[in-house]
């Protein structure tokens, strides 16, 4: 865990001040925090669990945990770092329990597995099979999402926090309970993998 005791987060981060108001029983401050973070939280969680409805449930769970933690909250990190630490744990637990469910239902998924082409296979498919054309926005987002989905859980979370939350390696390390060198290596591998998968589009403009 990385601590920076020299930073006065209360002075530096307005969201920390809002959370401190929540600690004092200010319901409006909590609503403001929900408004500020709900979309960001759902975006990250949706990309983690691949299910918008589930992501909303998990986001509500995160906000509930935030509210319940108000009596023990101490401003020793940016609010976003603290919030996404909770979100990371919630997402990790959700993925673990859904993985258990998948183990049980693995037999029923055989048909789907046969018809779905994994993205890493698509990446190495002969480019001549695909018509060369400009992808529209929906296709583009599907392609990128597929690439993100092909990363493992930790790589995915690190990428999402880095790209969409603009977190430093230090904050990502704190959020995910890793060391800074581990985050550096994790992000490097993740970006190498993304680059490999999306190379057909980047180089030739075709869908991988």
């Amino acid at each position: 865990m990385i601590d920076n005791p020299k930073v006065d987060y209360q002075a530096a981060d307005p969201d920390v001040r809002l959370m401190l108001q929540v600690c004092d029983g200010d319901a409006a401050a909590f609503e403001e925090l929900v408004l500020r973070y709900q979309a960001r939280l759902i975006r990250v969680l949706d990309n983690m669990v691949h299910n918008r409805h589930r992501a909303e449930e998990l986001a509500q769970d995160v906000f509930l945990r935030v509210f319940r933690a108000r009596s023990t909250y101490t401003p020793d990190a940016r609010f976003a770092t603290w919030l996404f630490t909770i979100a990371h744990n919630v997402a990790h637990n959700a993925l673990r329990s859904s993985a258990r469910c998948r183990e049980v239902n693995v037999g029923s998924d055989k048909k789907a597995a046969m018809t779905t082409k994994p993205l890493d296979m698509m990446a190495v498919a002969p480019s001549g099979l695909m018509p060369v054309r400009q992808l529209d926005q929906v296709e583009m987002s599907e392609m990128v999402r597929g690439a993100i989905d092909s990363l493992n859980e930790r790589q995915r979370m690190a990428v999402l926090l880095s790209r969409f939350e603009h977190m430093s390696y230090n904050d990502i390390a704190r959020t995910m309970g890793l060391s800074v060198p581990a985050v550096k290596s994790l992000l490097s591998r993740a970006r190498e993998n993304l680059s490999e998968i999306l190379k057909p589009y980047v180089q030739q403009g075709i869908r991988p």
Partner: protein
Amino acid sequence: MSPEEKAPHNPTMADELVAYLDGELDPESNRIVERRLSQDPEYREHLRELEQTWDLLDHLPEAEVDDAFTQSTIAMVAVSTAEDMRDVAVRESRMRRVHWCAIGLGAVLTLLLGFATTRWLTTAADRRLIRDLPVIENVDHYRYAEDIEFLRMLDQAGLFADGEELDHDF
């Protein structure tokens, strides 16, 4: 094959390039990367690919959240808080009952202990009185004795033959 194994990973090159793009290198490492970028076209190409694929992530749609979600979140937290408070109230009520039961039990135990102690003390005094009864009955006679040694002599001579042994504590 796991995603971690998919891409060939040259830790030094990839880690440094990615950290360079993320602005996470110290000034010295930054200079080294920039020097290499100016000299190595392959390294430059790799950087360009990493940048381009990174920029493609902007095509992931932002989450649109309506007011209903916000309101249901606030309502859910409020309901949960009310349930928590109810649970706390129930717990506190239970604790109060346990507290009063403990006080009552303590009072009963104190009473019992007091009763037993008093009874024991009283019985002990009675036992002493019964033991000393022969002496008490003859106390008028004993008063004529000059000292305890004289009484012991009388005792040894068998003058207290009816079981009235001289109390050593006398």
